[in-house]
């Protein structure tokens, strides 16, 4: 069986060029192929112990568990399947906090974490837990001294993401893990954007809990995993009551095809990571270089070196992000501007880096991935350059800047 997916390229422009790989990735056709038989032929409940259908499904799920474990250097027994990284993050943070609450009540995380981590922490604060939100430096990376100073004898968990979803920066996970281990604090890392993008090893990095997402690494949506260390053992309280599947930590019948898909996606990513990373580095550098050569006053948000190769987050000064996205309608990108979301607030991640609000409104997140071609990159650059130039010509701020007026010196009436 072969499955073809239509990837939009400049030659085939029925659909815009997809440059939003941090939002989600297409499911790799090889993954889809691996999943198919588990919908219609081997559809047993993997928890059924009394017949062949159940055994087939169980075998498939256990193979997938092994594939997931392998990409992060874990033991298959340490992998819990969940519905996605949001559930994994909730389970890790709330589960650990609740289980150890008689002894410890403090959690350390970071201001640029994903909403589901921040919201889980806020929820725990309402229950009476203490949470420290570490700031980040201008490049988006935390200071280890800040973490060291934040940990107390009441700290039960440190939760720091490996790769940021908006700016792609990589936190010093190995150093954080070593620090947590030396202070006997559990270390959870949201690795939704990291698995398959950068090498990860739960033992070398002293990670105790790790959240994984299927659809960020060319697997299906609706599946994720949580790594929960067995030695030294990490215990957690389940979020849901039920049949006690997944070592009692996550009840509910496993979705066999989705588990198979996640496993297949991890296996492919593990095999191809080095080559894919090299290819994306080349494309990303090409993209960045061409933009910077052709446009003045473009600023990269987040560190360039400590960053996954498939991400660029750029502020195009004097051009509002949503108007730019409206212009580059043949490119599917994401904006850090307020206007794209209902909140009307610019990205909290960019604000945490100290990016001023006016620049935060001008930012685009460009995500490159497995199916991005050099042709896509060149087309995207030319579209962005021409629309930024056009919009700058109609921007009063650009005009003022050209006249030498400092925008910050103007007294604006906030509305």
């Amino acid at each position, binding site marked *: 069986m072969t499955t073809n997916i239509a990837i939009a390229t400049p030659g085939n422009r029925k659909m815009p060029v997809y440059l939003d790989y941090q939002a989600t990735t297409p499911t790799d056709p090889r993954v889809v192929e691996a999943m198919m038989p588990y919908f219609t032929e081997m559809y047993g409940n993997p928890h059924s112990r009394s017949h062949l259908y159940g055994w087939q499904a169980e075998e498939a799920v256990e193979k997938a568990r092994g594939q997931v474990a392998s990409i992060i250097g874990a033991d298959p027994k340490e992998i819990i399947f969940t519905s996605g990284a949001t559930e994994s993050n909730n389970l890790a943070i709330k589960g650990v906090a609740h289980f150890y609450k008689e002894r410890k009540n403090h959690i350390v995380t970071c201001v640029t974490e994903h909403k589901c981590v921040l919201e889980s922490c806020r929820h725990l604060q309402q229950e009476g837990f203490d949470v420290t939100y570490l700031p980040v430096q201008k490049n988006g990376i935390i200071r280890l001294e800040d973490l060291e100073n934040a940990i107390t004898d009441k700290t039960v968990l440190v939760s720091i993401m490996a790769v940021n979803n908006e700016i792609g920066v990589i936190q010093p996970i190995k150093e954080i893990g070593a620090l947590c281990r030396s202070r006997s604090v559990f270390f959870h890392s949201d690795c939704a954007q990291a698995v398959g993008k950068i090498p990860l090893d739960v033992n070398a990095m002293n990670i105790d809990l790790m959240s994984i997402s299927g659809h960020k690494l060319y697997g299906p949506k609706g599946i994720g995993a949580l790594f929960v260390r067995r030695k030294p053992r990490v215990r957690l309280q389940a979020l849901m009551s039920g049949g006690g599947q997944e070592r009692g930590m996550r009840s509910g019948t496993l979705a066999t095809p989705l588990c198979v898909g996640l496993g297949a996606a991890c296996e492919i990513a593990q095999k191809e990571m080095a080559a894919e990373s090299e290819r994306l580095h080349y494309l990303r550098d090409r993209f960045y270089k061409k933009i910077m050569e052709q446009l003045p006053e473009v600023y990269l948000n987040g560190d360039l070196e400590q960053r996954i190769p498939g991400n660029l987050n750029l502020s195009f000064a*004097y*051009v*509002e992000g*949503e*108007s730019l996205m*409206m*212009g580059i309608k043949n490119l599917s990108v994401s904006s850090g*501007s*307020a*206007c794209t979301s*209902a909140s*009307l607030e*610019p990205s909290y991640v960019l604000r945490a880096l100290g990016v*001023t*609000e*006016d620049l935060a*409104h001008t930012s685009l997140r460009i995500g490159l991935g497995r199916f991005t071609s050099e042709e896509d990159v060149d087309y995207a650059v030319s579209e962005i350059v021409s629309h930024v130039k056009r919009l700058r*010509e*109609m*921007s*009063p*701020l*650009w*005009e003022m800047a050209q006249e030498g007026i400092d*925008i910050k010196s103007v007294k*604006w*009436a*906030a*509305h």
Partner: protein
Amino acid sequence: MAYSNKLIDHYEHPRNIGSLDKDAADVGTGLVGAPACGDVMKLQIKVGPDGLIEDAKFKTFGCGSAIASSSLITEWVKGKSLDEAETIKNTEIARHLALPPVKIHCSVLAEDAIKAAVRDYREKRGMTAPAEAAEAAGAKPQAAE
């Protein structure tokens, strides 16, 4: 977000982009909004000897709805008297462009911009208008929807 054809047309083919000489005696300039909020509009009018607006130009930093709102209002004010221009309501702009609810503030900004341009022109000419007295007393135009 799905935008109306009229809005997209104004975004893709904005009318009257540009600048007039802000120091000229027959030009009024309105600059409203703030970069930190994501919208800044500069709207300029050139008033003829007959007291009618003979030209209007704009530049806008903001989303597509803000660009379209300011483009539309420059079309509408041409040929109008200052008093007529001041009566343009944001609701008319919002209705014409079918702005979604989260974009109503863009039309408010366009209304503010034309009012500010008229005020600037009158101040230059040493004219006063009844509306100005109220505004000077602190009654800032509010969102009408």
